[in-house]
């Protein structure tokens, strides 16, 4: 026992070093776990509120751009209002529409922190469980997809950006309906890659990529980007496709969180099938 204490006191410096290192690495490993309660992320109270104050200042620099975008979206939405359609039906025919059931609900959120320069990029939004946000909800902007909610606290949530090395998002080439997976290779914040596009397709530069119906997180048909370049890999039947993302991750300020009302039903059914 005495020897042990002597050993500890003599080597306390190295032991302290090793235990601090061990603890840090533990935190890193834990951080890599998708879906997990974290204390030390930017959705906690201290850093969250500092970021809110800070983005209160920096928001002013982007006001012009934000205004333009909101105006654009207003126009788009106004075009879909009932007032902008003329009634041509006979007043005697009343149709009760039960064919449409709402599946997606959107929630507006402000981006209070954002990164694009790492391998694993995250955003922090100013909505949380108090506003009904849960993990694994999709986040989109008026330009395209943004990411998936990973952690939720009372009033903030932390979003795994599309610009994350482990992000996998089911997408679809609009022209052909060909399904694929979107990956981010970590090069820059404007480009991403697609997996396993068969080489018999006649791809063209500028083909639109949208989210596929295979995803239970994003609604089908949300803009993702356009094909920028593609090349056939020698000796392989697949294309190597690089696409330009339609979202400008450096300029995000307001985004929408997508709540899929039927997601639980779908995933529980899928899980039940897998158990067989």
């Amino acid at each position, binding site marked *: 026992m005495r020897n042990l204490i002597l050993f500890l006191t003599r080597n306390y410096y190295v032991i302290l070093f090793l235990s*601090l*290192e061990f603890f840090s690495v533990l*935190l890193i490993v834990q951080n890599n776990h998708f879906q997990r309660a974290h204390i030390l*992320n930017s959705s906690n109270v201290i850093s969250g509120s500092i970021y809110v104050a*800070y983005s209160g200042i920096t928001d002013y620099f982007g006001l012009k751009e934000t205004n333009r975008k909101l105006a654009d979206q207003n126009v788009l939405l106004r075009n879909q209002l009932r007032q902008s359609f003329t009634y041509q039906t006979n007043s005697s025919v009343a149709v009760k529409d039960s064919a449409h059931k709402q599946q997606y609900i959107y929630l507006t959120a402000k981006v209070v*922190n954002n*990164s694009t320069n790492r391998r694993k990029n995250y955003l922090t939004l100013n909505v949380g469980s108090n506003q009904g946000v849960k993990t694994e909800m999709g986040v989109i902007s008026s330009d395209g997809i943004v990411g998936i909610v990973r952690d939720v606290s009372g009033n903030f949530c932390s979003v795994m950006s599309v610009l994350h090395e482990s992000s996998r998002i089911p997408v679809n080439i609009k022209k052909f309906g060909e399904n694929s997976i979107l990956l981010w290779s970590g090069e820059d914040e404007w480009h991403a890659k697609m997996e396993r596009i068969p080489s018999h397709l006649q791809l063209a530069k500028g083909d639109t990529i949208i989210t596929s119906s295979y995803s239970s997180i994003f609604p089908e048909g949300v803009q993702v980007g356009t094909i920028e370049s593609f090349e056939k890999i020698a000796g392989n039947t697949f294309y190597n496709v690089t696409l330009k993302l339609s979202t400008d991750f450096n300029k995000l300020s307001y985004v929408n969180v997508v709540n899929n009302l039927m997601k639980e039903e779908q995933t529980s059914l899928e899980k039940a099938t897998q158990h067989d």
Partner: protein
Amino acid sequence: MINEVARNILRFLFLVLFQALILNHIELNGYLNPFLYVLFILMLPFQTPDWLVLVLAFTMGISVDMFSDTGGLHAASAVFMAFLRQPVLKLISPRDGYDVVQKPTIQQFGLGWFFSYAGILVFIHHFVLFFMEAFHFTEFFSTLFRVILSSLFTLTLIFISQFFFSNSKS
């Protein structure tokens, strides 16, 4: 002494906020990310006990991690750098050693000494940081390139801050 503690606490707070709110948003080409917060560990006085240097470095790293969602990445590299601070100081010590009242600054030890002191430690820190972030050696040279460029960027900032914020009389 009290004055010295207060000054270090202020420096700590300033560097964390500066790192989180300004430097984390700087990037050029995805290669250059400056991490000026290591200046705090570099500037700790010589008479700081070894264990305290480790604990302070850990606190610093965790604070930066909290703002950048990186788990314990910065904590791990800051602690590693703090661990090697003493050996590096010994390695480049001047002929008559260090005086306890002295501080590791350009004014007291000259440009060359400070350059090797800051240069070695910043490189170690960035090396650990970027390779832990990448977590594999498959893109060894591209990561190494990032390490070198970012180290140079951080060093430049450290030198600028030295000339701006140091009082020549101490």
